[in-house]
């Protein structure tokens, strides 16, 4: 939700009207945030139907709980915490994905790297292609990306999407998820390593 209106006072006036029971103001609020809530839900769920359900549940929750929003935090932080919860619920209703998320020894890393006769480190970790992202984004890669992120446990997926895709700060994510900042950083680290390993073969061959 990279929105210039996220801290805007005019928006707070709209929220206050909606809190007072003004249906038109609430409808305006929905229109202002519908795309970003749906986009976030889709990025986490990777499924149109689930994203739509999470979207509906989120705005029903917003409608019912809007009076609880006190304006002290950003509206987006409050909104994200609701949509995150609905996305988590969607995945807790199904069987939790299981994935081993390693970090301590990423594939190809050695404590003592291989060196040549002159003591220079020999590259044993393959470089990734330098192909521009737009060119890369074909059906095969999209399917791989969807598959990789779906394998990532949803608690990690949510942190990855919030931090790396949506650009939220560690502090904001910590508030949204009620996690400590070190826990946010740890999940992000594991998510990045996991996704990188899932894409490694495709990106090096």
């Amino acid at each position: 939700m990279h929105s210039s209106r996220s801290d805007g006072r005019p928006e707070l006036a709209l929220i206050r009207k909606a809190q007072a029971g003004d249906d038109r103001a609430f409808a305006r609020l929905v229109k202002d945030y519908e795309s970003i809530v749906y986009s976030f839900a889709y990025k986490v769920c990777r499924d149109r139907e689930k994203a739509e359900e999470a979207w509906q549940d989120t705005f029903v929750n917003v409608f019912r709980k809007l009076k609880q929003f006190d304006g002290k935090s950003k509206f987006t932080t409050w909104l994200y915490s609701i949509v995150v919860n609905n996305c988590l619920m969607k995945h807790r209703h199904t069987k939790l994905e299981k994935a081993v998320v390693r970090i301590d020894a990423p594939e190809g890393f050695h404590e003592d790297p291989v060196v040549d006769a002159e003591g220079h480190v020999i590259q044993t970790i393959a470089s990734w292609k330098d192909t521009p992202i737009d060119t890369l984004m074909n059906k095969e890669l999209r399917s791989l990306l969807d598959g990789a992120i779906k394998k990532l446990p949803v608690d990690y997926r949510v942190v990855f999407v919030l931090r790396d895709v949506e650009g939220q700060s560690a502090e904001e994510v910590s508030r949204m998820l009620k996690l400590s900042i070190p826990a946010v950083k740890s999940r992000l680290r594991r998510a990045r390593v996991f996704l990188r390993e899932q894409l490694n073969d495709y990106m090096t061959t």
Partner: protein
Amino acid sequence: MNLKKIDCLDVAKHVCGDLDEHIDSPECRAIKKHLESCPNCTAYLDSLKKTVLIYQHIPNPRFPKRSRKTLFAKLKLRT
């Protein structure tokens, strides 16, 4: 992290977490120095950055506007 005995695993753990953030911290200065002479860590850091970049660029479907109608009906909004 022990700055005197920094190795590839230390770098991997650190760069995974922060990528380019806090580049002026003592840890990052040590890592930067390590990266200058380590092709493995350079390739690894680059691949992590590309992973993030790729996920930032996946096209997403548009919001289905019929959902809004369904919601407004469900909430009995008078608009």
